[in-house]
């Protein structure tokens, strides 16, 4: 059943370092395409800075739109890192090995991208210094900690710091490996980054303990970050936003979209870097099973949220629910959310045969993220554009070209950074893979053969 081959260490190292040492055609195409979109993104940002937020499609009712939706989306994606690395590491799920680095790095870059959006969507981004950094001590004016927008950056910055540390700690052995396999400027760079890692027993021990500790600490962040992001909305009094269920709902939604994004990434890595031997069907199988659980939980929360709104019997809530279900374009979005986010992928994932079909997994994971993006839009925007009883002031929101560019560009930004990162650091942790090779065993559980690990220390 397992298509795994046992390779020699040299072969593994050579294979896994290939993305760093060689630049394939695919790679160049990726750089050029993503780079072009990224240029458009930067241009759009510059355009918006120059002319003001007026170039977007935001209006007097819908003061938040695509950019905030996108912010929530990328924060959601970032939850893949903790889920895969921290939780699966702590629970010692063996199948995590080839995907941890990709997930963590994606966390890092999607967090950075996400953080960009609340800043560029402000009216005067050059004044955001007031926001996070209280430099005006003598005037006695401070950021207002009652505001979810102040909690938000601190939570996200904590998460970002933790993630960067985590990525770094787990990469140190690979830096050492790269140092030994490279010459010239790269050698110098990796020498510094490796922090003198020589593979001594003590160094390994410390590296692994640090990894575990960070993973444990990150668990709390896992819950807090997206809860706080949900509080950006739930703290307000706005109908349908004003809900206590939003925090866990957002967290589970984040995991749903994040883990799906990891699937997308795994498939892409497999094709791009020819990692067929390292990112294998059983990994997709395992992650697919995880997704069935996560997706279903998310659906449960989704329905719960709707029921809460209906039970509340508030006219303003009802009006927005009516709008969400019956007024263009929200029924379409809802169809996206349900069909793409749940009803196509999850039944497919229920079958082992489909879980092992990488193409199918790739497309379903993309579907989930389309659905989840639509879900954020469906949650955030109608609540604004039909806020409260002032039917006279209910105004529709249509995103402008600048916002669309910004959203598309944010995907390019993350992709570009990931590609760039893969040129510096192997996208699959070499040491982890080697460790897995050395420690792996397969155990029989009932009719199944599952990978297991026998640790010696």
């Amino acid at each position, binding site marked *: 059943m397992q298509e795994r081959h046992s390779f020699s260490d040299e072969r593994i190292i050579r294979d896994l370092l290939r993305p760093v040492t060689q630049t394939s055609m695919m790679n160049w195409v990726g750089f050029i395409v993503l780079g072009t979109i990224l240029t458009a993104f930067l241009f759009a940002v510059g355009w918006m800075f120059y*002319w*003001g*937020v*007026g170039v*977007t499609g*935001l*209006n*007097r*009712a819908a*003061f*938040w739109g695509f950019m905030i939706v996108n912010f929530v989306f990328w924060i959601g994606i970032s939850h893949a890192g903790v889920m895969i690395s921290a939780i699966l590491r702590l629970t010692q799920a063996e199948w995590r090995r080839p995907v941890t680095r990709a997930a963590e790095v994606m966390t890092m870059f999607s967090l950075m991208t996400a953080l960009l959006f*609340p800043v560029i*969507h*402000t*009216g*005067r*981004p050059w*004044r*955001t210094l*007031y*926001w996070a950094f209280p430099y005006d001590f003598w005037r006695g*004016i*401070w*950021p*207002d900690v*009652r*505001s*979810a*927008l*102040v909690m938000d950056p601190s939570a996200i910055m904590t998460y970002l710091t933790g993630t960067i540390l985590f990525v770094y700690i787990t990469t140190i052995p690979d830096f050492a490996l790269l140092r030994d396999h490279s010459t010239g400027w790269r050698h110098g760079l990796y020498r510094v980054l490796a922090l003198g890692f020589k593979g001594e027993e003590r160094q390994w021990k410390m590296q692994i303990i640090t990894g575990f500790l960070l993973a444990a600490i990150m668990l709390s962040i896992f819950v807090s970050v997206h809860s706080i992001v949900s509080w*950006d909305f739930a*703290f*307000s*009094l*706005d109908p349908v936003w004003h809900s206590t269920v939003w925090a866990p709902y957002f967290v589970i939604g984040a995991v749903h979209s994040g883990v799906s994004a990891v699937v997308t990434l795994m498939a892409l890595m497999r094709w791009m870097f020819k990692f067929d031997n390292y990112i294998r069907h059983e990994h997709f199988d395992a992650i697919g099973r995880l997704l069935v659980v996560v997706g279903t939980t998310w659906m449960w929360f989704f329905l719960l949220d709707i029921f809460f709104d209906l039970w509340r019997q508030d*006219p303003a809530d009802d009006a927005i629910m009516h709008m969400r279900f019956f007024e263009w374009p929200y029924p379409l979005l809802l169809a996206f959310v349900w069909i793409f986010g749940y009803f196509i992928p999850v039944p497919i994932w229920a079958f082992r045969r489909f879980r092992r079909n990488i193409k199918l997994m790739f497309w379903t994971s993309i579907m989930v993220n389309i659905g989840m993006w639509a879900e954020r839009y469906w949650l955030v925007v109608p609540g*604004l554009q039909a*806020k*409260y*009883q*002032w*039917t*006279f*002031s209910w*105004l*529709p929101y249509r995103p402008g070209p600048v916002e669309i560019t910004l959203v598309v560009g944010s995907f390019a930004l993350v992709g570009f950074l990931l590609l760039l990162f893969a040129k510096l650091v192997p996208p699959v942790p070499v040491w982890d893979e080697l460790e897995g090779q050395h420690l792996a065993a397969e155990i029989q559980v009932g009719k199944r053969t599952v990978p297991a690990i026998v640790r010696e220390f």
Partner: protein
Amino acid sequence: MSPRWGMVIDLDRCTGCQACVVACQAENNIPINTEAVYLQNRAIEWIRVERYWDGEYPNIKARYIPVPCMHCSNAPCEPVCPVYATYHTPEGINMQVYNRCIGTRYCAVNCHWHVRFFNFWQPKWPESLQNQLNPNVTVRSRGVMEKCTFCIQRINHAEQNARLDGNRPLRDGEVNTACAQACPTRAIVFGDLDDPESQVAQIANTTTRGYKVLAELGTDPAVLYLKKIDPEAPAHGGAESA
């Protein structure tokens, strides 16, 4: 003892003529709402007049309500601002500090009366029209929120004069907002709610028609509306208080 500014708007007097809207625009340097601004749904009217239909043709009614900022005592817009750009003055006015504002628009998202406005564009006047601008009011740049201030420049000016005039308290009628001053039907009355002699306090204390819009949110607005009277309205029809 500082005053507590408040407003009473009598919906039975209001005819929807919108003199208040233009008066406010003239007083507070509100940029001209061009056609493009309306098409973008970004018109700025610190006080606006909303029109609601009621009934079906031919028994249809149009009803008007002027909506300025409510200056809530527990304003939902205030705690959400990350930089304290909006805050409550001791005199009960919900102020926007333009210098401080960075434009997250969170306050507008959390304002349920739709009375906070964002400068999506840099406001522009033809050069000759700039001569009309009120020098006592800051012209807001793009990227900041703005809102009704109860004509704070008039209040400050009157308070300064009262201070210079032997530090006496303000008299009722000494300060008036531009909208109340213009209103031809005298539907809008502005004044100190804590001064029992003031017209606004007397109306507020004696009326049987008072109600506050979205009072169920518990924000304690400083604007009291007087219910519209319609002899043909059902006794408990649309007038049901939530």
